[in-house]
Every structure is written in C-alpha cells, then in structure tokens.
C-alpha cells in the first residue's frame, strides 16, 4: 500500500498546473470560443488522453488522466465540449465501426470539429432502456427513422449522433435494436430544448419524422445495438474520480468562507455547533470520496477494469451530492434559494459542467439529476445486489419469453 504520487506524476502535475495557470481563458461566451478552447486543450495533449495513439490519443495512464482533470477543476477552467463523442462514440467506433466509419469520423471527434450526442432515452424508456420504440425501417438502401428521444445532452449543438432504434419488433426486445450514426442536420430531425427544474436547458428532446439514414451508417450488424451499447467501454476511465472531489471541495471551501461572514446570534454561522456539524459531515464524506477514488485509480493503474463496483462509486457520489446540497440549503436558509439578489459576500462563484454560472440554488436543484441519470440509484443498487453480492435476480415480466416492446 503506497498512496504517494510518483515523482513522475508529481512532475507531470506541476507541468499541467503551470499550463492551466498560463492558459486559462476568461469566460467563454460562444460555441466558437468553446471550440477554440477545446482545440487548445487538444493540442496540449489533454483531450482523448486515454485513446490509443494511432487514433490521435496519448495512450496515457489513468493517473495522468486523473491529474489533468483534477488540475482543470482546480483551476476552475472550462471543460472540453465533446464529452460524449470522446467518452462513448469514439471508443464504440474504434471497437465496432467499419474502416470507412473510422476514417470518416474519428479524428474530428477528438478535435471537436464535429460534436456528437447520444440518442438513447425515450419518454417511455428510462431505466428500461431496451423497451425503446423509435423505429428504423429498412427501405431501398437506407433506413427510415421515426420516433422521439429525450434527455439528450448537447443535441442543440451536435453535428452527429449515435442512435439506438428498433429494427425488428418481432423478437425479444434486447435483440431487435440496432446502432446507427445519424446526421443531426439532416431533414426530419427536430431538436427542442427541454427546460428543467433548474430553469436551464442542458437537455433536449429530439423528434424524428421520416429521417433517412444511409445503410452504411449502421454500426455493427442489425440487431446488435443493445450488445454494443452495453459492452462499450471508454478509454477515458477514472479521469473524473479526483476532479469531482476537487470541484466539490472548492464549493465546500467557499461555503466555509460564507459561514464566516453570515451573521448568526451575535456571531457568525461558523460559531453555530449545528452548522459546524454539517460542515464537518460534508468534509468527512467528501474526503471518503477522495479515498475511494484513489482506490479506483489504483485498480485502473494495474490494468484492472472497475466492474460493477463502479456502481458503488456512482451511487455514493450522487447520493452524497444530494445530501450535501440539502445541508447547504439548511445552512444558508432562504439565501440559498436566491437566483438573483444574493449579496456578493455570500455568492458561490463557480461554473457548472455545462459552462455557465452555477450558484447555490442551481447546484441544489441540479443535484436532483445525479441520482437519476446514467442509471438511477435504484438501478445501481440492483446491479450491486445482483452482480456484486450475487443475490438472486428478480423475475422480470419482460424476460418471461414475451415479444418485443
């Protein structure tokens, strides 16, 4: 057991930190500015770090990826913009795409010359994604797509998408799904921003009306879509485990500062034992997240894949964030709910992952998303129960031999 950073990693961290100090941009307003920043990160070698070198990546170790992400969070620098493309689409194409598909799409994913989104969830297919109904019907050398997707991040700026659609309704639901590349600028694709409880629109609804998708845009074989979506493992693993902690801690440090100015009973909120207990609890829980992150990185560094255990990680940090945002609200009282008019000495000056200002109120509302997206807490607990603890699987109506959706 040795949790020291190696000399090499320390030196690498120092270089990365210096780079961000020198290059961190002021606020990015436009998509073009964000693309330019992304390009700069790419040229510095900080994008697609885990990608194989032959595809323009760095073949970097998980620890190096984690260091860059952590330093980026530490500098409070804006992030990259093609996260889904780099995290999911690229690796999927590298693993399962045809040579022509790889040649056409991969390079521009890393450089963010083309932005990608992921068309998975549907209004009636959330946790039960395999029940999706968007149909792709083969006609004269292309597929005709009709249906609707929801919770699509980046759809409003995306050039391309990966799409899960049903090509065969006559077989059990998991077997009738195919995986496509879809041109988001094509005719019949309509993107509508989805306004969330935050008042902002990080997600979209996407509607398809007789969208023609060329047959060569099928990834893998027809009916293989579910398998591809399930088995795709990105190269960018472990990158976020420390960055998440750093970001969370920065907000917590700001909260402690605010507590030192917030008047309470003749003193400040920091004198209040109840407030202190909450701050102490949050500090403890986020430190534990850091230790657990180091444990994950240690595994990744040895070339072990985090299996279903990554469900433990996701379950913990998303539930933790929700708990902490509630405590922040308890400490700040009605100030915490202010979207406008918050005295400057109480403000949280941070950026959301989506690149806009995120105050206490926004973070509080946003925390409700974490335990729903990317596999809800209930789904994570099923995975932990069944695949880690080997508890018996639930009998499921949809696996009792019925037909597709």
């Amino acid at each position, binding site marked *: 057991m040795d949790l020291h950073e190696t000399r090499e990693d320390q030196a690498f961290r120092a270089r990365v930190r210096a780079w961000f100090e020198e290059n961190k941009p002021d606020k990015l307003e436009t998509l073009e500015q964000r693309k330019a920043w992304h390009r700069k990160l790419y040229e510095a070698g900080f994008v697609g770090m885990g990608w194989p070198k032959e595809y323009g990546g760095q073949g970097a170790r998980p620890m190096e990826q984690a260091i860059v992400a952590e330093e980026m969070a530490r500098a409070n620098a804006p992030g990259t913009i093609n996260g889904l493309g780099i995290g999911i689409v690229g690796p999927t194409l590298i693993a399962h795409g045809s040579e022509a598909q790889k040649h056409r799409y991969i390079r521009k994913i890393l450089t963010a010359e083309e932005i990608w989104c992921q068309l998975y969830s549907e209004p009636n297919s959330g946790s039960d994604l395999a029940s999706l109904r968007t149909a792709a019907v083969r006609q004269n050398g292309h597929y005709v797509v009709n249906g609707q997707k929801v919770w699509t991040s980046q759809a409003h700026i995306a050039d391309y998408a990966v799409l899960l659609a049903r090509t065969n309704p006559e077989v059990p639901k998991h077997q009738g799904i195919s995986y496509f590349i879809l041109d988001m600028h094509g005719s019949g694709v309509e993107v509508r921003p989805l306004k969330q409880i935050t008042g902002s629109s990080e997600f979209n609804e996407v509607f398809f009306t007789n969208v023609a998708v060329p047959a060569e845009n099928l990834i893998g074989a027809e009916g293989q879509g579910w398998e591809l979506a399930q088995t795709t493992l990105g190269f960018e693993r472990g990158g976020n485990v420390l960055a998440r902690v750093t970001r969370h801690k920065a907000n917590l440090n700001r909260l402690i500062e605010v507590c030192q100015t917030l008047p309470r009973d003749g003193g400040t909120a920091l004198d209040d034992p109840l407030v202190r207990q909450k701050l102490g609890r949050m500090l403890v829980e986020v430190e534990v997240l850091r*230790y657990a992150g180091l444990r994950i990185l240690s595994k990744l560094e040895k070339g072990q894949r985090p299996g279903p255990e990554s469900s433990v990680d996701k379950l913990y940090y998303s539930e933790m964030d929700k708990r902490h945002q509630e405590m922040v609200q308890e400490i700040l009282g009605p100030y915490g709910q202010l979207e406008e008019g918050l005295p400057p000495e109480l403000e949280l000056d941070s950026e959301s992952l989506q690149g806009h200002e995120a105050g206490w109120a926004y973070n509080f509302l946003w925390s409700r998303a974490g335990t729903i997206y990317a596999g809800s807490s209930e789904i994570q607990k099923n995975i932990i129960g069944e695949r880690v603890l080997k508890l018996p699987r639930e009998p499921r109506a949809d696996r009792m031999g019925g037909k597709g959706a």
Partner: protein
Amino acid sequence: MDFDFTQEQVMLRNLAREVLSQECPTRVVRQMMDDPVGFSEPLWQKLAETGLLGITIDESRGGQALGMVDQALVLEEMGRAVYPGPYFATVLLAASLIRAGGDRAQMDAYLPAIASGKLKATLATSEDTRTATGGPEGTALHARPLGGGYALSGTKRFVPFAHVADLLLVGARTTDSSDRRRGITLFAIERDTPGLKLTSNVSIDRTNKFSTLTLEEVRVDRDAIVGRVDEGWEVLRPTLQRAAVGASAEMLGAARKCLEMSVEYARVREQFGQPIGMFQAVKHACAEMLLEVENSHSATYYAAWALDADAPDAGVAASVAKAYVSGAAREVCGSAIQVHGGIGFTWEFDLHLYFKRAKHFEALYGDAEQRRELVLREVLASTAVPVLA
C-alpha cells in the same frame, strides 16, 4: 498509487483470521462474555507466539516493527471475530502511548513484556466531562507534587480491561492552564499501587469489559511519568489518532461480518415463495451495506497509511475515518438485524455480538460528532491539508 495490501500483509491478515477462527469461535466468545475476567490466557499466549502482540513494537524489543496498516488489518480481524480480551487496550492503546512518549527505561521495561504476553496494560482517558472533540481537555483528575513524586486523585471512566491490566496509563492534570490541553501529564501506574480502586461496569458489549477507575492519593515516583510534565497532550495526540483508526478497523470488521451474514441469509431465507434477497427492499438494503463497508475500508486504510507515511493530512484522515466508520458500522450492523428479522433479535443468534461490538467503538475515542468537529478545526487551522488547497 497502490491501494492494495502487500503479500506480507495478506499473509498477516490470513494468520490473524486463522488463529481467531480456530481459537476464538463465537462459542468461546460467549463463554468469555459470561466470565468475570472475560478473556482466555492460553489464547493470549497464542497471540504472543504468533507475534500479534508485538506487531508494532520494534524488533530489538521482541516485536515485528510493523505499521498502522498492519495493525489495522489485525484489528479488523478482531472485530470480525468479536475477540474478547485486552488486545486493543494493551497493544493499541498502551503500547502506542509508551512508544510515543516513553523513555528508554520505560520502553525496555514494558514493550518486551507486552510483546511476549507477560504484561497487560491499558489507557485511561475518559472522564465525566464531555469535550467537543473527545480530547483530554476535560481532564480533572489531578496530580500534585508530593515528596519527590506525585499524588493522584480523581476518577476515570470506561477504562478498557482495567481489571486485568498490570499497568495503567493515566492522564492527570498537573497545571491549570487556559489551554485545557496543556497541563496534562501521563503516569504509568502499576496495578497493585495503594489507593487504586476499580469498579466494574456491565455494558451491552460484554466482549469489551471496562471499569471505572478511582484514585485516592495514589503516590507515584517521578519515573512513572511518560513523556514530559504538563505536555502529555503531545503523547496522547498520536495515540488517540491511532486509537481512532484502530477503532475504525474493529468496527469495519464487525460491519463486514454483518454484511456477509446478511447476504448469505437473504439468499437462502424464503418468504412468499422466493428468497428474500430477490425483493428489492432487501436487495437494496444489502447494496447500501456494501457501499458503507467499502467506503469504511477506504477510510480506515487510507488513514492507517497516512499515519505510517506521516502524511500532512494524517490527523484529518484519522478523524475522517472514525467519523465515517462510526456512522457506517451503525447503519450496516443495524440493517443486518433488519434483514434477518426476528432471528436477528435473539440472544442465541450471533448477530448482536457484532452489532454491540460496533456500538462499543462508536462511542469511544471520539464519536462521530466529536470527530467531525475535529475535522473542521483541523481544516480551518491548517493550510497543509488538501481540503483547503
């Protein structure tokens, strides 16, 4: 970056598990619960032979000179086996304190005797005044200079295995100081010293027997002082950090055992025609238990490593571990009873042994509230800590 145990550490854990499963099954634990002495001398000698008593003591004094990670591995096994006896009191508390503050003569006198199983010892820290951090600020038991030595009077509470300890380590106030942590001096007092009185307590965890210790004009020489006069805090602080991590390891052991028992039970116990583990209500409870156990593992061993490595955040990490694991073990052991239903509430079923073991350590050496306060103070006071980096 390597969070895994070394091969030697895995062997050490296996050794501890093997000795305890052979010599200390719950049948033996239950005998000791009913026994007024509460531990087995032959098993103590066995622990000496296997090197577990001298685990952190230097080699020249008959020990293995291993670190806190190794110590935590053994303590996790102790928790898992609900080992009844003065191991925590002697090996973790007393030996750590003597190593931290003892002079050469004290180390020569006590450490080889602990390693070889000849000497049992304990540390008395708690008094009636509850402090915000669980530290010794509330020490009221006082020592006044008398002749060439001191006379001690006062009361200590919850002194683990004092009734079998040959040597009692006691913190006493020698000077009234505005900084309540200053002015405390530590004394090593042999049990047959006149004026010592022990009153045994019966607590819910009968595998950990403790006593109230009363001192009435107990006279000791100057050479009984461990560390420097008035600066006992310097010796107590590292000892209490180790105690926090050691207690976390014990709770982790108890919690992990509870998780394993619950998962096993949920697989085989049937109601409504199916194993109860098939129901999400039970499955999800087990998943939450796993999360708490894995986080407790990360917290305990990170803190143990940080102490060994003398990392700048070692103090924070020890408190983080104790605060986190205290809550986690409470949840896990409690859920275990719930998953088992009625059988888990019976005396004859072993589950309550682990539940109570975890509860014992939850309340001592800084409970979760006290450790949270300590974490906040350390974070506010220090810039060396990554939290404020």
